[in-house]
């Protein structure tokens, strides 16, 4: 089997599945704001960050800071969580950041709100055995989220610059 199956379909799988449904509905219902290519790029970046962070922090070597879901194997729900849920969560952050033109002091409040929301969700996730901490705690998560949301803002800026570069030059290189 390419993906191993969960040991038992219980609360942690339900958490991932519920998150998936909620984020998909939000993503579906949000009015179009970014050009499709930019949406695609933002989703790739947000998915990649989640996967990379999990890879560095959660693999057996060098840190083994936490385990996700039932086993150390990469099961279907690991795949859904890291490849869809993380990506959509990051996208929603970026979407409202850009749509509401968050600037100045509001930016800090906005990031603080999302950090609090992320820590709360992670706290619920640990209670539901989605994450099992080995050498990790929510204080570390707090610091990580600070960097993660700063990175998302950077992704938005780079993404918009890259899209505008395409928009301004695409007529020169008609393919």
């Amino acid at each position, binding site marked *: 089997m390419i993906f191993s199956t969960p040991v038992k379909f219980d609360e942690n799988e339900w958490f991932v599945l519920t998150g998936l449904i909620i984020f998909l509905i939000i993503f579906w219902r949000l009015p179009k704001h970014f*050009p499709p*290519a930019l949406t695609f790029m933002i989703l790739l970046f947000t998915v990649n960050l989640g996967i990379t962070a999990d890879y560095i922090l959660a693999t057996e070597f060098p840190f083994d800071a936490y385990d996700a879901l039932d086993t150390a194997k990469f099961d279907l729900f690991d795949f859904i969580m890291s490849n869809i849920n993380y990506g959509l969560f990051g996208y929603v952050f970026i979407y409202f950041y850009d749509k509401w033109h968050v600037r100045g002091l509001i930016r800090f409040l906005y990031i603080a709100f999302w950090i609090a929301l992320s820590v709360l969700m992670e706290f619920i996730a640990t209670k539901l055995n989605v994450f099992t901490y080995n050498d990790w705690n929510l204080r570390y998560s707090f610091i990580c989220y600070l960097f993660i949301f700063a990175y998302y803002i950077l992704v938005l800026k780079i993404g918009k610059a890259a899209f505008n570069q395409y928009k301004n030059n695409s007529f020169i290189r008609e393919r």
Partner: protein
Amino acid sequence: VEDITMVLGAIIFIIILEIFLIRMRKNLFLIEKLSIWIFLSTLNQNLLDIAISNLNLLEITNSQQMFWASFFNRFLLIPFLIILFVDIFFALTSSVKKIILFVTWIVLLSIIDRAVMWVGILNYHKWETWWSLVGWLCILIATLGCRKFLHYLLLKGKVVA
């Protein structure tokens, strides 16, 4: 000291590669390069997770240097090489040249796979060389598909960013 040397080596290598990518023929836009890079990094990460955790085909060596070497290999080196492939691919007009390019890149990437094993970055349990060849063929085709899809999205997008 070895760790610092390795990190410095990796940084110098990345800078050289970046200069090379910036200086090379610009057939791809920045948005295409970034998207392809992250697409490949994500794809590689997922495939490696499956190969290591679920299929037990590979194992990461328990050494800090090898862990980061493996990370840089998949996160930077391989994606940059494949971006270069895509860049050249869409500049070629002859089918024969495209096939030659495909074969060259598959062989090159498979040689890197072997080198990764030889250096000890990854331990291969039951790996066959032809899996590398087929694997890279699929990844190159997937990358071209990703670029086509992105191009379709770029042409479709009319909303101002």
